[in-house]
């Protein structure tokens, strides 16, 4: 509860800071619209030449893009402002030292205390595209499908957070290693169903770097109904990833001697 109150306070402060700069607000909104518009346009071009792509119809693709955009919005609003460029900001510039002195979990402070509320525009736009996709689909999703989509989206967000923490933890062992650009590039692959990619990449995106869990798997659950095995695997993957992130963070802190020492 205390952590939730902290999260709320941080969000409120960030929101006030963000809306004070109107030009920045304008550019953030513009980029959110054009980014999503580009993604949708790229898919619409494909469907002028084909009825389905790797077994996915246009409506199903819209559901996928909506889900992807929604999770991307949450990541950009709550995770990226804290963990992006962590080796530089957290370790080399010593911001982590400040968090370690505060009376709250250092993992929470390092990964969730700051936020970028304007990025939630992407979340709202994602909901809109999701609604468009559902309306254009041949049949409406079942209640079970919606419930499993929700569960898998939560699992996807947890995996996203855990991946970001694990990436940040690398800095405890290799402070000069900067993988953010790589991570953000790989993230782009989540916008497409894994069925589109060649087999080795498909396996990599499902089991090693689980981008499939971000949009592909929740969208399939929404459109084709729940499958117990997938739900169990999704929840287990998120639990495992979160546990691994916490353990790695603790191991990293034991190794950390401070930027100023």
């Amino acid at each position, binding site marked *: 509860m205390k952590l939730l109150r902290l999260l709320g306070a941080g969000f409120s402060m960030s929101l006030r800071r963000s809306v004070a700069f109107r030009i920045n607000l304008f550019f*953030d909104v513009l980029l959110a619209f054009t980014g999503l518009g580009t993604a949708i346009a790229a898919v619409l071009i494909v469907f002028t030449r084909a009825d389905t792509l790797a077994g996915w119809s246009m409506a199903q693709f819209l559901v996928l893009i909506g889900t992807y955009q929604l999770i991307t919005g949450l990541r950009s609003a709550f995770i990226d402002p804290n963990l992006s460029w962590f080796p530089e900001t957290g370790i080399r510039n010593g911001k982590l030292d400040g968090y370690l002195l505060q009376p709250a979990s250092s993992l929470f402070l390092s990964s969730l205390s700051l936020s970028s509320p304007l990025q939630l525009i992407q979340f709202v736009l994602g909901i809109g595209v999701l609604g468009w996709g559902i309306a254009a689909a041949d049949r409406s999703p079942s209640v079970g499908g919606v419930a499993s989509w929700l569960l898998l989206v939560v699992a996807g967000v947890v995996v996203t957070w855990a991946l970001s923490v694990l990436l940040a933890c690398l800095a405890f062992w290799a402070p000069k290693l900067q993988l953010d650009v790589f991570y953000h590039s790989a993230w782009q692959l989540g916008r497409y169903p894994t069925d589109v990619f060649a087999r080795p990449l498909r396996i990599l995106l499902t089991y090693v770097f689980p981008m499939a869990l971000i949009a592909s798997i929740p969208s399939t659950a929404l459109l084709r109904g729940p499958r117990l095995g997938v739900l169990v695997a999704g929840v287990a993957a998120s639990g495992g990833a979160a546990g691994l992130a916490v353990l790695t963070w603790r191991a990293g802190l034991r190794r950390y001697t401070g930027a100023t020492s």
Partner: protein
Amino acid sequence: MRTLPRTGALLGFRLRQDVLEWSGAWWFLLTLVVQAVVAPLIGLFVWSAVYPDDPAIGRYYVAVILVTLMTESFEQHTFSERIYDGTLSHELLRPQPVVLGVIGTNLAVRAWLTLLGAPIVLLTALALRVGFDWWAVLRAVPYLVLAAALVFLWTFLLSLTAFWTDRVHAVVGFGGQVMFLLGGTAAPIGVLPDGWRRVAEVLPFYGMNGLPASVAAGTGAGGSLGYQLVWVVVLVGVVVVLWRAGVRRYTAVGS
């Protein structure tokens, strides 16, 4: 008359300096290579799924990957940050054009990306069993040179907005999205719906990416060196105007 060789010598010096400076950041450069190849690779997978039996798709996208690596520009980082942290003042005081340093850095980064990305291009070509007509590849070289100039001018132009806003990354990001959509990466320009294709053929973005790639791949889409040259002249004009306005504003802010 002695200005041109002196400028060339200065550019060469800056290029050598930057090539050496970036050689220490090879891991970061590798992540930039990955960033550059992801979008064309997605295009390759998507369009290969649409046209599984068309070898021209593979050939075109292998060429797009190489063109992207050879023309990548990052002036929103290498130049705009100097406006934000104030170190542009040092550059303005030097007895040489500021843009020389920016071009030197740009060429050095491109050289490293091409070198580090070459194995990816080669592996993709081998995996897809893509074969090129080497005469077409040779013919694409002047198109590639002009494409490199266009991408630099476009990115530098957008980076100049740092004189007026601190959201230059959003502005350049927007420019990149337009390039992705209308430049031939999201889809080969030949498969765009008629209206879109006509617009794309007129705007400069196709000349930045898709045109040299289609010449190298021998897919025979429209576009000419003249069309690229016109856009180079237009963009140089706009860059000069914006640079002068920006520097006047920068002086006013710093005085």
